[in-house]
């Protein structure tokens, strides 16, 4: 049985790279601590592959033919896509892909009734994949990735219940379809509160962000599914905050377990709240195994 040995959720706000120089010291400290800790955890977990779920941000598909989930099957993932580079303010990168695992994921999710799409060509990455890849030095770690870009913003948006069910199918796929000795990492890339393109572009809902971080770190998934509604996320920042659904996919895959937060920061120029959680993959093992059986 393959195992999930790393699981986390983290923001990908472009300002975390291109506008970092505008941030005060304490904000810089939270950002540096967060991504350094995640990078170290990825490296020390000795994972064979990192599957990253992230908001597609309308980067790859036309709005009238928009997939809910799009798997990147490339052998190498290069980014950022040309138009996003000055906006993020980042360098080019190349990360190893995992075409066989991506193909197995596509087949495994299809078999479990989850409609995903997949393409061999390099996906167009904006901040969604570029920011976590660069800030956690996934490129330097040598860990291959499978990016899965999801619809968090084009109605009808797969809601928290649907994304959790997708995550449960993902967890089942990892445990039962992948090689028995494989170690898998999962990252939900997105959030926290923000409203890109909206009339409240600079709005950061600190109350929502702190509530969300506490909730996902608590491991109470019943409450999460009751309270993390699309309406609540839209109120905390339209067209942006709902990308926390990428975290929900990861939570569905790992099941209820506690996590640790690395602190919280809000900086107006980032136009986005910043905070990440890493879940304890050694917690609740007997209970989760019993539930799986």
């Amino acid at each position, binding site marked *: 049985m393959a195992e999930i040995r790393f699981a986390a959720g983290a923001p990908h706000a472009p300002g975390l790279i291109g506008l970092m120089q505008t941030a005060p010291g304490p904000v810089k400290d939270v950002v540096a601590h967060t991504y350094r800790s995640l990078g170290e955890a990825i490296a020390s977990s000795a994972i064979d592959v990192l599957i990253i779920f992230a908001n597609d941000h309308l980067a790859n598909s036309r*709005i*009238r033919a928009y997939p809910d989930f799009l798997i990147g099957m490339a052998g190498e993932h290069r980014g950022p896509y040309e138009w996003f580079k000055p906006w993020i*303010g980042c360098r080019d990168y190349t990360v190893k892909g995992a075409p066989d695992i991506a193909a197995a994921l596509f087949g495994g999710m299809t078999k479990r009734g989850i409609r995903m799409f997949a393409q061999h060509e390099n996906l167009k990455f904006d901040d969604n994949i570029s920011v976590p890849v660069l800030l956690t030095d996934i490129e330097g770690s040598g860990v291959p990735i499978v990016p899965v870009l999801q619809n968090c913003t*084009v109605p009808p948006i797969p809601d928290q219940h649907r994304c959790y069910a997708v995550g449960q199918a993902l967890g089942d796929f990892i445990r039962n379809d992948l090689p028995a000795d494989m170690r898998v990492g999962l990252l939900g890339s997105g959030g926290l509160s923000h409203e*890109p*393109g909206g009339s409240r572009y600079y709005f950061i809902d600190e109350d929502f962000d702190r509530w969300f971080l506490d909730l996902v770190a608590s491991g109470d998934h019943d409450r999460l599914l009751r309270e993390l509604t699309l309406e609540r996320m839209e109120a905390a920042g339209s067209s942006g905050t709902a990308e926390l659904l990428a975290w929900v996919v990861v939570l569905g895959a790992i099941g209820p377990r506690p996590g640790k937060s690395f602190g919280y920061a809000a900086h107006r120029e980032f136009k986005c709240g910043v905070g990440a959680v890493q879940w304890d993959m050694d917690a609740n093992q007997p209970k989760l195994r019993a539930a799986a059986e």
Partner: protein
Amino acid sequence: MGLERFDPSLATHDLIQDLKWSPALREEFVLNEAGVLDRYPLRQDERYAIETRDFRTLYDIGLHPYLGGQLARLIFGNEAGKGATVAVNKLVESLQGKGPVT
């Protein structure tokens, strides 16, 4: 102002995607905006709103806000801390009541 007025049929969505995906089209848009707009089946009010940089009207008739933010960057600048900041401020100014921000 969120997704409640979103109308995926607006051709402006395709224009923005094509501009993001094609450096050549972006260059042409700068030199001959009308010529580029002529190729898209834009409604009269939709085209006029683009020409006058009236994001408020575009959102009212159904432009997706995420792509609206990108249209602002395509027009006013896309570099972190520079043109992109101008674009955000122009967009917010339009959406918060000013309408055209040419």
